[in-house]
């Protein structure tokens, strides 16, 4: 079982890993931006205000300089200076204060708009100053510069919120960044889902091939380009090659087998005739008969796997086969001092129209059920109860055969059995002294797959159970 820690899985899955890392970085960025927005905004605005103040200060200094050059007594006239400043006081954004160097405020009253309260005595001591206007706190940024020739300093003050109200660049920047990150995250998720879907297609197809042995299946490659499309193409190409090779091998095996049938019949008939005269040949006759049976069954499995047993599958009622198999094998169980019990899902018993139709073939189902019952009887101890149960599911009708299985009496462990029991010539009895050819369950698997059904196997400590599940006619899975 995979017991890796989550982050290890994340590291080993590059697609999820990338998405998670991207998501984490984006989240941290957005969180920081949210937490520091106010601080960054203030910093930006103050920085912007400083530039505006410097520009204003520069302009005022230039104006004063110009006035001083054109008016000889300008420097002596405070009123002229005030007049100039009043003239410059043209916008709502900037407030200027004219201050004496030592005696405090020289003039400010006339320069402040009437709606603004005047309370500043010496703003030279302040970098920023705050007051309340209309119940709101207003913080001014200030810049102070000496006025040459006036023995005074000019302080220019600016309400920075005026700048931020129209041009909140940090907010815009953060919003754009957040949108880009979120769109990026969504795009990554979408891309990951697409790649994942293609990989799941590949996984599904390969798993289905492994489970059914049907090499005619292909990975869907529509609407794909790039390396993933090349991978899908290569896998499909490889599957085609394997399928062709398998078909050729099976066809060759079939041809060889057909060519061998007549000479084998002659040899067997001659041996049978000779055994009548020479009883010592009876063992060889029996061996050859077993060989013929094995040979015939192997060919039949080959044909079933090659889908050449039927030209067309029919709809059938499985119930008569179920009853026939029970009736045929009940005496065998009794002879082996075992018992055979059977039942149906409760709602099936109550159904007047019977079990319903499934996709299948009478002969194949009967032969498969006989193999299951024969196996169950052979490998169950005396006094045990073998159970046949018909289960109904959404798409399938399953016939489950459950028999006790003594693990202690077998050298094979359940996992090994689970993995290999359907292989040809597999024998749970590794000494191979038990009767049988090890093809019974291989046949069951091949027959059920040929009927487009499923075989399910459950091996537990003391119970062995095989289900033959046939597709119900009209079910969603029917092709």
């Amino acid at each position: 079982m995979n017991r890796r820690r989550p982050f290890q899985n994340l590291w080993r899955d590059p697609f999820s890993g990338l998405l998670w890392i991207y998501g984490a970085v984006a989240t941290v960025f957005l969180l920081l931006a949210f937490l520091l927005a106010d601080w960054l905004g203030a910093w930006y605005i103050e920085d912007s205000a400083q530039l505006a103040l410097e520009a204003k200060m520069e302009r005022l200094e230039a104006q004063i300089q110009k006035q001083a050059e054109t008016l000889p007594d300008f420097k002596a006239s405070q009123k002229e200076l005030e007049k100039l400043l009043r003239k410059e006081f043209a916008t709502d954004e900037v407030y200027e204060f004219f201050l004496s160097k030592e005696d405090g405020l020289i003039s400010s009253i006339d320069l402040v708009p009437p709606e603004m309260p005047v309370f500043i005595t010496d703003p030279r001591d302040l970098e920023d100053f705050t007051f309340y206007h209309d119940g709101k706190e207003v913080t001014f940024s200030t810049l102070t510069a000496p006025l040459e020739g006036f023995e005074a300093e000019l302080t220019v003050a600016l309400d920075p919120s005026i700048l931020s109200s129209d041009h909140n660049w940090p907010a815009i920047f953060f919003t754009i960044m957040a949108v880009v990150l979120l769109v990026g995250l969504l795009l990554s998720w979408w891309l990951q889902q697409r790649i994942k879907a293609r990989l799941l297609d590949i996984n599904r197809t390969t798993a289905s091939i492994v489970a059914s042995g049907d090499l005619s299946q292909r990975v869907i490659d529509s609407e794909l380009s790039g390396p993933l499309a090349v991978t899908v193409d290569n896998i499909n190409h490889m599957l085609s090659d394997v399928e062709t090779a398998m078909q050729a091998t099976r066809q060759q095996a079939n041809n060889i087998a057909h060519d061998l049938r007549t000479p084998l019949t002659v040899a067997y008939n001659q041996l049978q005739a000779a055994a009548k005269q020479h009883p010592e040949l009876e063992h060889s006759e029996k061996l050859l008969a077993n060989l013929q049976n094995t040979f015939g069954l192997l060919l039949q499995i080959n044909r079933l796997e090659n889908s050449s047993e039927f030209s067309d599958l029919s709809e059938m009622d499985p119930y008569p086969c179920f009853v026939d198999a029970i009736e045929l094998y009940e005496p065998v169980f009794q002879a082996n001092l075992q018992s055979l019990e059977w039942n149906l899902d409760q709602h099936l018993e109550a159904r007047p129209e019977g079990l319903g139709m499934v996709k299948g073939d009478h002969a194949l189902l009967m032969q498969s059920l006989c193999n299951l019952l024969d196996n169950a009887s052979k490998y169950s101890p005396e006094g045990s109860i073998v159970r046949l149960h018909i289960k109904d599911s959404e798409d399938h009708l399953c016939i489950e055969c459950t028999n006790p299985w003594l693990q202690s009496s077998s050298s094979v462990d359940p996992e090994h059995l689970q993995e290999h029991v359907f292989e040809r010539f597999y024998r749970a009895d590794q000494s191979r002294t038990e009767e049988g050819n090890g093809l019974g369950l291989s046949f069951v698997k091949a027959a059920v797959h040929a009927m487009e059904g499923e075989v399910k196997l459950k091996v537990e400590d003391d119970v062995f159970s095989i289900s033959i599940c046939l597709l119900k006619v009209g079910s969603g899975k029917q092709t």
Partner: protein
Amino acid sequence: MKILLVEDNQEQAQFICKGMQESGHCIDWAKDGREGFQLATQQHSDYQLIICDRLMPEMDGLHMLKALRAINMTTPVLILSALDSVDERVKGLRSGGDDYLVKPFAFSELLARAEILASRFSPVTAQVDNSLSMADLELDRMSRKACRAGKNIELNTREFHILEYFLQNPGRVITRTMLLEQVWGHNFDPQTNVIDVHISRLRKKIDSPGTTPLLHTVRGAGYKMEVLE
């Protein structure tokens, strides 16, 4: 019984001919379908059974069979074939074949099938008897009752059909596959002792201790029911 064998494999044909002759039957051999058709349709041929291979040169078995049925020849035909898929069996029987035996087969199986097939089409046994019997064993098909020496025998449905089949073919070998086909209606070899178990149960009921055994095992072939002298 007069039999026509149509088989292209000389060795196989010779063996079947020899076996049939040793079993008291008269047999003619044709090497391909064309020759088989000629032999089967010539005047006074009066074959009671035709055994034909499926894959042959010139005219294959199915073509010959279709041609024979086209001229309303009703002689029973047993098809021998290496093609054993369900589709091929169906094709053979739909072309007019009456039985289909897959290679490789035991000669005893061929002989048993040939004899039973010919007897089924015999005008003597074509009439249906409601009552079947052998020695002191009687079977009433109407009331579905069996008794031996006047003593009632309890049989379930399958046992009744097995006994009925044996009594319809007295003294003839019946193989396990034939029983599965005729009594259960399934056409495959279970390769287990399942039929033997059923026969054993039936035998216990009809050949009870103190009675003359009627149901006999034929080694390497199957069973037959007869009164041994």
